[in-house]
């Protein structure tokens, strides 16, 4: 099993390298000079050339890539073109906020997903199953940014129970309670898609296990429902856990839209800002950090999966 883990880690390195290449290439493919966003349009040619040389934009692309990569490896993601502050610091703060959202959305989505999915599987064919399946499909088909707006309309505008924006009150109060109040709506909006996906997966997985012969054997032995349920859940767990890991990764990366609606100061918000300000270092930094997290998360999920599912023991 250790050789599997080692091999998986080994293969992770070229993937990461590939990620860096893509991030680098993407933003250099972008139309528009990165220079033009830094200097006014009528800057004299010598100034433009000087800045070019200073920032290293005149070297061939592979050289630029290498210099960028070495800097990144040392933790220097450059300075934001907009705020002149180090990119890494900004990302660190923002990422923490996104993590908050992602974790709470994951909790809501996963718990709901497992509960609904299991219920649907045990009541297969009856109206409860159909109702849950309908909810699951709706969860996957709903545009979460639209739901975010709906939630704001209902809970903020109409009922005025919960705040619509940001993480803290504008008056400066920042207690845990305030944080929670601000977190509820975005977490719910974000949790919809994972909930839908997990519900469907849990339902399929549990159903598959229920139909296997060993469950029939257990029940014919006269075992109580609770014992059978425990056995069933243990067997149905591995693919669901893998999926949960993946979904968490999507939550980290895909929170942009919800963060935009709620003006939540997370990495997605930062990304959005960076696109519009054409803040290349910030853009590169955010995408790189998020992608790296995702790769490592996938790695972890793979390793955990191979540990808990005895069928995948590699020699």
């Amino acid at each position, binding site marked *: 099993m250790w*050789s599997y883990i*080692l*091999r998986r880690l*080994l293969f992770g390195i070229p993937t990461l390298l590939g990620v860096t290449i893509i991030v680098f290439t993407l933003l250099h493919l972008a139309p528009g000079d990165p220079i033009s966003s830094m200097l006014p349009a009528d800057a004299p040619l010598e100034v433009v050339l000087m800045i070019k040389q200073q920032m290293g934009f005149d070297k061939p692309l592979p050289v630029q890539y290498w210099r960028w990569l070495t800097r990144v490896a040392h933790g220097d993601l450059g300075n934001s073109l907009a705020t002149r502050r180090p990119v890494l610091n900004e990302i660190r703060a923002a990422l923490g906020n996104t993590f908050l959202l992602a974790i709470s959305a994951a909790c809501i989505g996963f718990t709901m997903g497992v509960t609904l999915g299991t219920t649907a599987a045990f009541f297969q064919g009856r109206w409860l199953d159909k109702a849950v399946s309908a909810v699951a499909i709706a969860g996957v088909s709903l545009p979460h940014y639209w739901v975010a707006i709906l939630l704001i309309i209902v809970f903020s505008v109409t009922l005025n129970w919960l705040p619509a924006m940001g993480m803290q009150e504008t008056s400066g109060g920042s207690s845990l309670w305030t944080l929670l109040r601000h977190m509820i709506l975005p977490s719910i909006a974000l949790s919809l898609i994972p909930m839908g996906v997990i519900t469907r997966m849990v339902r399929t997985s549990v159903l598959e296990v229920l139909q296997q012969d060993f469950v029939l054997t257990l029940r014919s032995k006269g075992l109580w429902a609770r014992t059978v349920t425990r056995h069933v859940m243990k067997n149905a767990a591995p693919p669901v856990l893998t999926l949960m890991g993946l979904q968490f990764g999507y939550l980290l990366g895909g929170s942009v839209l919800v963060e935009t609606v709620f003006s939540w100061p997370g990495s997605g918000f930062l990304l959005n800002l960076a696109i519009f300000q054409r803040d290349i270092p910030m853009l590169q930094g955010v995408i790189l950090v998020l992608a790296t997290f995702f790769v490592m998360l996938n790695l972890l999920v793979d390793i955990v999966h191979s540990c808990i599912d005895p069928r995948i023991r*590699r*020699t």
Partner: protein
Amino acid sequence: MSGSKVVQDMEQSTSLLSVKNLRKYFPVRGGLLHTVQAYVKAVDGVSFEVQHGEILGIVGESGCGKSTLARLIQCLIEPDAGEIRFAGQPAMPTSASAFKAFCRQVQMVFQDPYSSLNPRMNIEAAVAFNAIVHGNSRTTARNKAWEVLRKVGLRPEQFGRRYPHELSGGQRQRVNIARALVLDPTLVILDEPVSSLDKSVQAQVLNLLQTLKHDLGLTYVFISHDLHVIEYLSDRVLVMYLGQIMEMGSTEQVSTAPLHPYTQALFASTPSMNPDERLDRPPLMGDPPNPMHPPSGCRFRTRCPHAMEQCAATSPPLLQVGSTGQYVACYLYSDQTAPPGPPLHPLSSAGEEIYRMSQ
């Protein structure tokens, strides 16, 4: 394997199919860098002949290499060492057209009636495909398909347009047979054709096979793990164990007076309907050893009640016993203790390396 009397006998023969010192080793990869760690010696030095018009039965437990042998004879996979001759000519096809010509003569009926038919092709098309591949026009191919479907007992007007999922297991196997016969082959290899069928259906299909052989003048190589089926159908029997031949001879000889301890145990293992023939303990104990690390010398020695010291040293060669064409690979019947010499026939370079590694 060297010094095999079988091989020497084959020098002067006019058999339809002759196999000499056939070897196929499958590499097993593992570890950090996916390097080759061991070889599964699926077929390890097999030599035999098939005469025109006879049915050669090959019997053995799961994992003894029967299916690999079938695919080697059909030239679907390449051997690592050894030679196959068909009708006197070397059978290893060197080009696509040579392979095509070979397939006209030698066809195979596969084991699993469920996955051996394309689920998205109707019966007619599935059988006619073989004919189309060999240059027949669509109409000729369809006519041939209809003809051969009739021969196997499936009315083409009723079954032609059906899909595999609409047929029973026995019917699908008939389609399999029809597909193999549409090209008028000389030799048909049957890889456990009735193993997945119910007993009653098995009997029907076996009878069909006999009728077809008689009517069309076919030669069969019939592979099975079921002794009764082999006894029923074959003229000669070949007993395989872990990639090697243990015993070979006419069905009558082998079934009434088996010589090799393994064959004896196999025949004793089939349950009898006679309550007085109860056994005290099973004749064959334990599981077959791992094909990646077979026992040294005679492969059967770990389960053999008569194992001797020399059985662990070298593998016993396949030698004729008496003059009735029965061959056994067992030191109980030979007085030869000569050490093995070099192989009789040239090996491919890959085969040589593998042979060296296995010594």
